[in-house]
């Protein structure tokens, strides 16, 4: 019985967190047909940013205030991912974005290399070679006429690489270098006594996680289905060019989508942080599970993302608790199960089946 309750608690809390992240991935996909691998980086970054804001050793502000600021940071990070990783690949009326991007990239590259440059001569030479390489790449990009004016995510899968590079390499490493490389803790958002059921403790934090997640999920779903903005999102996801003919500013819609996804990732990160430590590995794992959840539930379907999230949490919790050596088996079982499902239904449980026209 205790096991069952433990599983349920884990499902509810982890599932809600994953659902928020998954919803973020889904919103971005629904709008731009891009699967945002960078959610992981945002989750990591948000955790450490919240730590910086709330820890007495650093800024030390009220934890709810830190929460708010972290969400803001999440929005900004989300937009950053869009600008550097997705829109930079071309499209959405933003060709002028490229020179902006090129300049910021060059400056960033030079600054980073200077900061990190090692001291021995031979290696210094090699470092300069690498910098020269980046500059050559940038010059080439400026000189070469833009080959990508129209961005069709189905065929041009460069976004897999850029979002992954941003989210799993670039952002997490910058954050851990700048803030801290070790697991950190942030204070509880709500204090109070824990309820005990069947020997398992349910803290007010747990309740907050579940409550807030569900509230957010419902709110977003309502906005998406009832308001004009939601209809605009839907239009952009079906046909961005025609949507712009309707007077919809597709660039803004995309930015809002990415910002929203970033915010959701940040909120999820802060909610779960008091329970698990703020740790690089944890955040990456959560994000991978969120990705799995979205694919399982079906890309483009909000219902699918949420159902997928709770399913993923349930399976991992069940296997971890019930099977001997459970935590080793959880991920393989999950992945294998998903593989089998994808074999049968490639677009996931609730995904749309696309018909290919010959």
């Amino acid at each position: 019985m205790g096991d069952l309750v433990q599983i349920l608690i884990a499902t509810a809390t982890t599932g809600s967190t994953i659902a928020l992240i998954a919803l973020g991935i889904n919103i971005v996909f629904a709008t731009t047909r891009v699967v945002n691998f960078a959610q992981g980086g945002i989750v990591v970054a948000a955790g450490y940013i919240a730590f910086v804001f709330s820890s007495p050793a650093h800024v030390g502000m009220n934890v709810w205030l830190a929460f708010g600021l972290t969400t803001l940071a999440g929005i900004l990070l989300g937009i950053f991912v869009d600008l550097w990783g997705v829109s930079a690949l071309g499209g959405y009326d933003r060709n002028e974005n490229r020179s902006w991007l090129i300049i910021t990239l060059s400056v960033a590259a030079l600054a980073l290399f200077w900061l990190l440059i090692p001291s021995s001569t031979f290696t210094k030479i090699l470092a300069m070679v690498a910098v020269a390489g980046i500059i050559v790449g940038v010059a080439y990009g400026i000189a070469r006429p833009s080959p990508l004016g129209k961005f069709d995510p189905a065929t041009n899968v460069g976004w897999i690489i850029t979002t992954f590079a941003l989210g799993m390499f670039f952002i997490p490493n910058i954050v851990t270098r700048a803030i801290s490389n070790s697991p950190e803790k942030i204070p509880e958002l709500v204090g109070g006594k824990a309820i005990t059921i069947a020997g398992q403790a349910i803290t007010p934090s747990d309740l907050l996680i579940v409550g807030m997640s569900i509230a957010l999920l419902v709110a977003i779903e309502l906005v998406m289905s009832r308001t004009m903005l939601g209809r605009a999102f839907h239009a952009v996801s079906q046909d961005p060019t025609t949507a712009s003919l309707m007077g919809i500013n597709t660039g803004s819609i995309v930015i809002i989508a990415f910002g929203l996804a970033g915010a959701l990732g940040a909120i999820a990160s802060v909610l779960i942080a008091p329970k698990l430590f703020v740790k690089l590995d944890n955040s990456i794992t959560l994000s991978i599970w969120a990705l799995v959840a979205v694919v399982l539930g079906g890309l483009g379907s909000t219902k699918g993302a949420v159902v997928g999230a709770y399913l993923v949490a349930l399976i991992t919790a069940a296997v971890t608790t019930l099977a001997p050596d459970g935590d080793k088996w959880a991920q393989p079982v999950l992945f294998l199960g998903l593989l089998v499902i994808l074999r049968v239904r490639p677009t996931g449980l609730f995904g749309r089946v696309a018909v290919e026209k010959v």
Partner: protein
Amino acid sequence: MTYTQEWPIETMQEQYEPPLLEIVDLRVWYGAATALKGVDFIVERGEVVVIIGSNGAGQTTIMKTISGVVELRKTVEGQVLFYGTDIAGQQTHKIQQLGISHVPEGRRIFPESTVEENLMLGAYTRFKRERGAIAGDLDAIFDRFPVLGERRKRPAGYLSGGEQQMLAIGRALMSRPFLLLLDEPSLGLAPLIVADVFEIIKELAAGGTTILLVEQMANMALEIADRAYVLETGEITLEGTGAQLLEDPRVKEAYLGA
């Protein structure tokens, strides 16, 4: 029934009023390929102007350049004057907000959204200011196109070609445009349906909407045209009134299949 807004500008004297749309020496390239080689034409307020041409002559390029759609490797030179102001190179949604509505080639309705949602999206830019008026316009569209009213809640992807064309036109009308751009409305439709569509266009013209229409089916188009131009491989080769071009022997041979 009018589907256009009140013209907001008091004209002092008619002869000083600039044409609603004037294209001056428009040249367009896609990469190294020339699509338009210097096109000039005018659309006055309240007119129906038709551009006919065969496949690949450049009609869709003209439409997309006017409405500002972004395309691969496109270079544009020349002027697109909307009531005297150059709008060439402006962003698509800004141009739509000026009052130019483009019904794209191939209709391009939103297949997953319902008929009603498609129409509401047409009125996207008016949404904040004129909620009540939009509801009224919606009813008017359903009155004029009862088929759409019947399929109000169905996803638009399930409609037939002709119904989709009506939906696309209705959607464009929802924004009460000053200028309606119609890109090959007859494309992919059975001739019986095409006749129906052109009936609708005639009505719109009678109601005061300014229309720029490009077509390959020259017959029907020239019959409703006030003035018309012939476009061949990126250049205007003939111009005149609709009636004149219907009688012109060169047009007859090339486009009317006599």
